């Protein structure tokens, strides 16, 4: 089992960042390669640019703690846990932490690699949203 953790400082309040990542249907807007998704209750199905369909289970969606957790349940992922946490640094900036734990270990690197780009895009979207507000 391997865990990779990346974080991004974002010049937007935590509530604004959460408005991006806390919406489970928003993932195609910020995770590189995910082109669409459907959400039904705690089930999310993502569709990737390679043409794959991957089922996911949403484990936690806590708007008070700004914590989101999900699991990719496709068979190749023997174990996966993704968590996204947003914490306020001050009234106009925050940090977003994206952690990936997976078995086999290589998958943590592959998914974690995607989360680097996801964090950048989350930051860009949140900062744009904050600038417009």
């Amino acid at each position, binding site marked *: 089992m391997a865990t990779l953790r990346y974080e991004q400082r974002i010049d937007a309040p935590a509530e604004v960042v959460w408005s991006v990542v806390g919406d489970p249907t928003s993932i195609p807007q910020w995770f590189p390669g995910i082109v669409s998704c459907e959400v039904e209750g705690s089930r999310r199905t993502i569709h990737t*640019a390679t043409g*794959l369909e991957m089922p996911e289970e949403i484990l936690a969606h806590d708007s008070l703690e700004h914590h989101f957790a999900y699991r990719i349940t496709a068979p190749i992922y023997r174990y996966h846990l993704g968590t996204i946490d947003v914490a306020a640094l001050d009234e106009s900036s925050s940090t977003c932490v994206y952690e990936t734990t997976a078995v*086999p270990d*290589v998958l943590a690197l592959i998914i*974690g690699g*995607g989360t680097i780009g996801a964090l950048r895009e989350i930051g860009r979207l949140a900062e744009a949203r904050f600038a417009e507000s």
Partner: protein
Amino acid sequence: MGRKILFITTDQQRYDTLGVNGGQLARTPHLDRLAKEGIRYERCQPTSVVCMPSRASMLTGQFPSTHGAWMNGVALAEDAPSVAASLHDAGYATALIGKAHFEPFLDPFGRFAENALANLGVPTIESPWFDGRRGVHRGFDYLEFATHGVLGPLHYAKWMQAQHPEALEGFYPVLDGDLNVNALGGGDSGAPQVKFNDVPRDWYHTDWVADRTISWLNQQTDERDWFCWMSFPDPHHPWDPPRSELARVPWREVDLPVNYPVSAGERESLLDQKARHWRAWYDGRVVSNYEAPAKWVPATLTANQVREVNALNAVEVELIDEAIGRVLGALALKGWGDDVDVVFTTDHGELQGDFGLLFKGPYHVDALMRLPLIWRPAASIGASPAVVSAPVSLVSLAATFHSIAGLPRPSWSEGAALPTSDVDAANRGFDQSVTEWDSALFGVDVHVRSVVTRDYLYSEYLPGTMHDGSEGELYDLADDPLQRTNRFEEAEFSSVRSALSERLREHAERPGERARPGDLVAPV
């Protein structure tokens, strides 16, 4: 009209696998003929001995420490300089057919264009260019991809999955259940990454790459120049060529490589002279990089496994040579035989039994660093055939293609156009080539810098988890062409060592803008 350019690359092919370079196993008449008609380089080095950094250097004319794709799994920035973009700007039609690998393969989301393109069903996409414009991806207006297997999202794999699903099982499973490079043995000898493959030859990726190249060439017109990068995935492992072709090189009749130490004692003695990670890998104590099977111990490699791997490698090399012959024939049918520059090379070599090892890694010796390179200029320019013994580098390819197209060397290219003779090499200062290695994966990081001159191969190990910065290797290429005797600590070579170390320092401090090192986002 300018000169058309056919750029042919293979993957992981040693210098000595071509007949014209002294190879004894594979018959390579088409490449041998190109070499005799053109310029054959006797000491060409890659900028890196793994695929992604080396291929990025071909495209950008930059060393990995400049272009930023510093190890496999680190994507070349989308807006990195590209010789294909220059040629596209100059009016060339531009295509890359086969293995690209500027972007990581293990990318289930398809966040990289190489992995998404086949599913998108378009010949290219628009991406940012290095000069702030947007244009076709990396300068190519046609892209069609293949790699070593039939799984995944690339064009060849999708074609096989759709058209010939019954043949998929014949291919070696490149990765194991843990997504590491597979150690599973096969063939007659149980060698890793070997499998008898019942796929018909016509469906194998070597012929597919040639077929798709011919199809693209047949769509081109006399009125427009073109640059076509035809990139074969072989003879990189897995060694699973079509079973129908195996009789070409019966493995039991294959001689052991001259640099394969037959006894374990000799192997260990040779490895103990080198930097410590060599022996650590051999013994199974450390796997320093993803490119070799994580669960395979080199000390278990048998002489028969070396024979069988070399035989299968030779079969793959022969199939490539025949595929090249078909493409050259197609060019002749189009009436372009005298108007096309053909450049052939590979991205890096393969240990293939040398020192009792297989595959590749931070092991800077000729097995991995001495590459076949042939440039057959268009017959219409009347260039004289030549053999160039001066050290040259793949970093010169981008400038060479600019030169062929009549374009000036771009400011971003760190390499000058290849010399056309040893006199030209001497006049233009081709007296060294540098190869870099950087890797950091799962707690092991290794950093090597090597310089090759006409006389020496010298490596310095920078501090990492395996080295403290004091280790190195120095080989006298005249007395020790197999690099068996490490002179690094010998007092009588201290002045040579100092001079070569100074060359590496100058390389490290060379002027020029560097891209930010890219993020490691996949193992390969």
